[in-house]
Each structure stands twice: as structure tokens, then as C-alpha cells.
């Protein structure tokens, strides 16, 4: 599966330094399934993130009961901490030509970021991810750990 980067504005202070007005982000829409329904939500592929974390309101919306989730504190690169509730969730990703569906451990938290964070546990662990900085695309190929369809 191939996902083209979504362009976002470069901060003005960095435009002089980089000579660019925009920067690409590997945004990958992910379908989340729960007992009450499903939602397609934008996620940011982040190979440096240990966890996969979605905004907490999504759990309520698809009917996932976080009272049965495992709580854990995650720490950001700036030192801030975040309470995350983890549980197994069914997900689906498609670029239109190929679709993959699996169940992985993902977390829900009060995120201040715009996108879900698609990190190692629950997401990237199941794929060989090729982030092509020059072409600004990310290719995902299922690996030996993938046990979905």
C-alpha cells in the first residue's frame, strides 16, 4: 500500500532555512471498528513512536469500553506525560488498491495533536514501512508478524 504525504505549511521561521513553504507528513487514514460502529480517522505514521494512540472520543463513538482497557503513562519527547488506555482493536487500512485488516493493541488518550499517532505497537509492527523522503510517499508491506486478512 502506498500513501502520499499530505503537505502542511512550513513555519515561516523555517522557510528561510529550508527554502520550502511546506513539509510533507505521512498521513494514513485508519478505520477503527468497535461494537457500536466504525470510523475512518487520519493517523500520522511515526516510526519513532512506541505506541499507537487515538483521541479518546473515538473510543466512545465506536463503543469501546475503556473501563476494560489497560492504563499506562506515556511520555513525550518534551517530557510531558499522558495517560493512555490500551486495548485490542480491529483496524483496516487501504490505499484503494489493497486493503489490510487486523487486530492490534492501541491506546486512547486526550491528544493535543491533530492526528492519531501510528507507532510501533499495534500498527508499524505488522508492516515493513518504507518512508521515502524524496518522493514523499510511505509504502506499507505486511510482514511476518501480520496475522490479519
Amino acid at each position: 500500500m502506498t500513501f502520499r504525504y499530505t503537505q502542511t505549511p512550513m513555519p515561516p521561521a523555517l522557510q528561510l532555512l529550508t527554502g520550502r513553504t511546506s513539509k510533507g507528513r505521512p498521513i494514513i487514514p485508519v478505520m477503527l471498528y468497535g461494537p457500536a460502529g466504525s470510523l475512518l480517522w487520519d493517523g500520522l505514521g511515526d516510526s519513532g513512536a512506541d505506541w499507537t494512540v487515538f483521541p479518546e472520543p473515538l473510543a466512545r463513538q465506536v463503543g469501546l469500553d475503556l473501563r476494560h482497557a489497560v492504563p499506562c503513562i506515556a511520555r513525550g519527547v518534551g517530557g510531558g506525560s499522558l495517560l493512555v488506555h490500551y486495548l485490542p482493536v480491529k483496524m483496516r487500512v487501504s490505499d484503494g488498491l489493497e486493503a489490510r485488516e487486523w487486530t492490534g493493541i492501541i491506546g486512547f488518550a486526550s491528544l493535543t495533536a491533530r492526528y492519531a499517532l501510528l507507532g510501533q505497537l499495534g500498527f508499524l509492527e505488522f508492516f515493513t514501512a518504507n518512508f521515502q523522503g524524496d518522493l514523499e510517499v510511505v509504502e506499507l508491506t505486511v510482514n511476518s508478524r501480520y496475522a490479519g486478512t
Partner: protein
Amino acid sequence: MDEPHWHDLYATNKSKFTAEELRPYHGQFLAWSKRGDRILAHDADLGELVRLVKALGLRCDEVVFDRIPEGGEPEIALCQ
């Protein structure tokens, strides 16, 4: 079934929205068309937004959701 290459179109079109154009949506959940060329509905409450999307006759897999934080999009989103 997804349209072939739908994500290419989605990423390309969504990139055309400027920070200024998205400013009215700060603090809101958004429902984007899968072509990425339109914000079909928005609301501060995700449940209400889903109701709005369904009222448009759309399923939740026919739009893409995200949320723009209050104050706009942060530059760094890292988690360990």
C-alpha cells in the same frame, strides 16, 4: 469498496487547504470528503458530527475524520 488510488487524491487535495482556511475549524472535529476537496461537516462534539454525516446520507467509511486542536496544529507530535 475504496476507489482506486483514492488516497492520492485525498492527500493532494487536502494539502491545498491553507492554515488560514482551517482557522475557523480550530477546536472542531472535521469530516472530510474522501477526495479531500471538501469539509462536509464539522462540530466540537464527535458524536454530533457523526450524526451530521449520517444526516447527509453518508456512512462513516465514506468520510475521513480528524480534529484541529484549539490554537491550530502543533508542529511536533511525538510519543514514546
